[in-house]
């Protein structure tokens, strides 16, 4: 499939830049948190400078104003070159940007957007221990006292909150009426007194997420986005900020990483094992199909087409393929994979298949679990009825 000429030119440009600038050894230099953070900051800085970090921002920003088709080209090339994923700046450039751009005051935009390009990082304070799939059930309370909100509560699963400067925070300002109606959206300084961050020890040894404890944290009312009690709508803008680029990027990365499975097959001399060849062939097809649907999702968006549920299909098929990919590696690798190997922070293709397998759960659980996506597909694409109201014992 050939792109239009201007896209071809962009693709060549990006390739040339990556050939010259992409860090080849980033896996080895991201084994500790400190190294990871440094590698991430360096790489983000380079991309900002080259004009590829924020293609989706308005043209007023250097490197912004790119069409979705252009964004797709950039992400495809980043994936194919197996560069570091932009993990540390992702919430800043997508979630914080979209929220500020679409819902915040001009004053707020002018204060925060430029700082993101200078490397200020954001995290998202949405999920809580009792509010995962059911996000609207958040309990973190904010009480207004004059010009400030006093916030108490706890957030979990906040990506890289331990390194963040600012937080997109959902709080409850009222318990009356429907759950959604009492939610307010605040921008919180992570250095504020009363904020404690505790990294979550993940089962594969990573610490990609953190808990945030809020103990009488004071947030100026001027840091509110939208009106009090209207935070749920703002949160939708945050959540909708990234539609398909990440999954396309990750699908292409998985396709690239199939060479690791091929390596295992050769290392274990399975080249003539017809069962293994069939299973590998099946996986290759599955991954190709996920790349195709992630691609199609973006092409449709470029053409202004997006149906409710499309994103859920892309997510579930990606996570299913990622599970299959890591399970085949785990199986072919045999007992060797049971030994702990050094992993790379936040990497989905570490080369240690146990780690990759465990990582794959992040995709079936986080960001709307597989089960929640199935509900969306059934109810909103197939028009099936919702669950009955809860039965009260």
């Amino acid at each position: 499939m050939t792109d239009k000429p201007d896209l071809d030119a962009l693709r060549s440009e990006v390739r040339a830049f990556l050939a010259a600038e992409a860090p080849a050894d980033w896996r080895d230099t991201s084994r500790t948190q400190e190294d990871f953070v440094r590698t991430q900051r360096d790489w983000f800085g380079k991309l900002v400078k080259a004009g590829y970090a924020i293609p989706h921002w308005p043209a007023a920003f250097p490197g912004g104003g790119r069409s979705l088709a252009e964004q797709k080209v950039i992400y495809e090339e980043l994936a194919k070159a197996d560069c570091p994923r932009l993990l540390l700046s992702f919430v800043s450039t997508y979630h914080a940007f979209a929220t500020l751009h679409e819902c915040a005051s001009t004053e707020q935009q002018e204060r925060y957007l430029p700082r993101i390009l200078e490397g200020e990082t954001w995290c998202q304070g949405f999920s809580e221990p009792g509010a995962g799939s059911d996000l609207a059930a958040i309990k973190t309370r904010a009480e207004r006292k004059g010009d400030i909100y006093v916030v108490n509560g706890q957030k979990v699963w906040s990506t890289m909150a331990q390194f963040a400067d600012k937080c997109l925070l959902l709080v409850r300002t009222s318990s009356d009426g429907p759950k959604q109606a009492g939610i307010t959206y605040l921008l919180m300084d992570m250095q504020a007194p009363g904020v404690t961050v505790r990294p979550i020890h993940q089962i594969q040894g990573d610490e990609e997420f953190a808990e945030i404890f809020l103990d009488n944290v004071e947030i100026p009312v001027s840091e509110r986005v939208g009106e009090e009690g209207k935070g749920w709508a703002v949160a939708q803008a945050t959540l909708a900020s990234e539609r398909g680029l990440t999954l396309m990027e990750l699908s292409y990365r998985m396709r690239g990483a199939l060479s690791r499975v091929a390596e295992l097959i050769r290392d274990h001399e399975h080249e003539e094992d017809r069962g293994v060849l069939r299973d590998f062939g099946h996986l290759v097809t599955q991954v190709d199909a996920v790349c195709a649907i992630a691609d199609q999702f973006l092409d449709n968006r470029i053409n202004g087409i997006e149906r409710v549920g499309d994103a859920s299909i892309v997510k579930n098929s990606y996570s299913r393929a990622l599970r299959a990919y890591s399970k085949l590696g785990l199986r072919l690798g045999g007992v060797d994979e049971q030994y702990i190997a050094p992993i790379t922070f936040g990497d989905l293709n570490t080369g240690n298949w146990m780690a990759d397998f465990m990582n794959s759960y992040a995709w079936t659980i986080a960001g709307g679990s597989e089960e929640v996506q199935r509900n969306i597909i059934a109810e909103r694409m197939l028009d099936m009825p919702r669950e009955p109201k809860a039965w009260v014992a």
Partner: protein
Amino acid sequence: MIELNELTDAAQKAFPAEALSPGRDDSWRLVTEMGWLIVRLPEDAGGLGLGREASTAIHFEMGRVLATTPLIPAQLGLQAVLASSMAGRSEWVERLAGGAYAPLHLLPAALEAAGDGTLSGTIGGVFDADMAAAVVAKLPGGYALVPVNAAGVTVHERPIWDASRRLFDVVLDGYEADPALMLTDAAGASALHDTLACEAHLGLAADCLGAANAALDLTVEYMKMRRQFDRPIAMFQALKHRAADMKTQVAVAEALLWSGVRDAQAPVTASAAAKTLAAEVFAFVTEEAIQLHGGIGLTEEHPIHRFMKRAMLNLQLCGSPDLWNERVGREALALR
């Protein structure tokens, strides 16, 4: 894109979803009239000159209604004749474009040549040979048109579970191949095979996914209507989630199909992979559909079983998933 929508609309009008497996002979007249036999034939040869997307869209709609017309083998037979340098080529092209039927048979036939050069053996599994003027089959000397009314040629139907289609054994007994009807020589046979195998896979994949969509629609509709324990069974989450997975798999296989259709450079394994996934998904969807229909799905009176039987046959056509998954794996291993 507008062309595709028009084709699809026309197909849905000519073959409405309510009438599954409409009569073969009427359907054949209809597809001939609508120009579907010549959809891929270049305009200068009297065809519509449309591309793969167009034929794929048609095969998709034919799958949706479990069509009884052998449109894929017919189109491929015509393409094989067109690609040949046979003397009588234009006459045959005209005949076939006008509604004569010469199905391409891609599988190698079990034929033996006697000392006098005559052939005996069976060309097994030919679609609708009873209505064929000839079969395009691979003889020891290359692809050839084998007229079914020639001396030494007989045709025997072998009943299959999939009642929407008919398979025949074309039996040769001392058949003398007519040199004027050779389409390729032995060396040219494999190039022709590869080109047309790609087309066959994509056509079949479209057939699978059109039918899988229809089977899913029927199932979802049934689940909303069927009540047990005082509610529609579509309200039971365990069943809803299964429907969601069916939808997901169909959508993913469709994306792979269309990316294959648009990639003219893709190797035969790529189109075979698209067909394999499509056929596996079609089978999965129909297996789930039977279960979700419950008892009624096990009766002949409800149509859902017809989808399942077509799915099981499609799995085997043009090479089984076992065969192609292995080849895809082998090729991917060689490349990575």
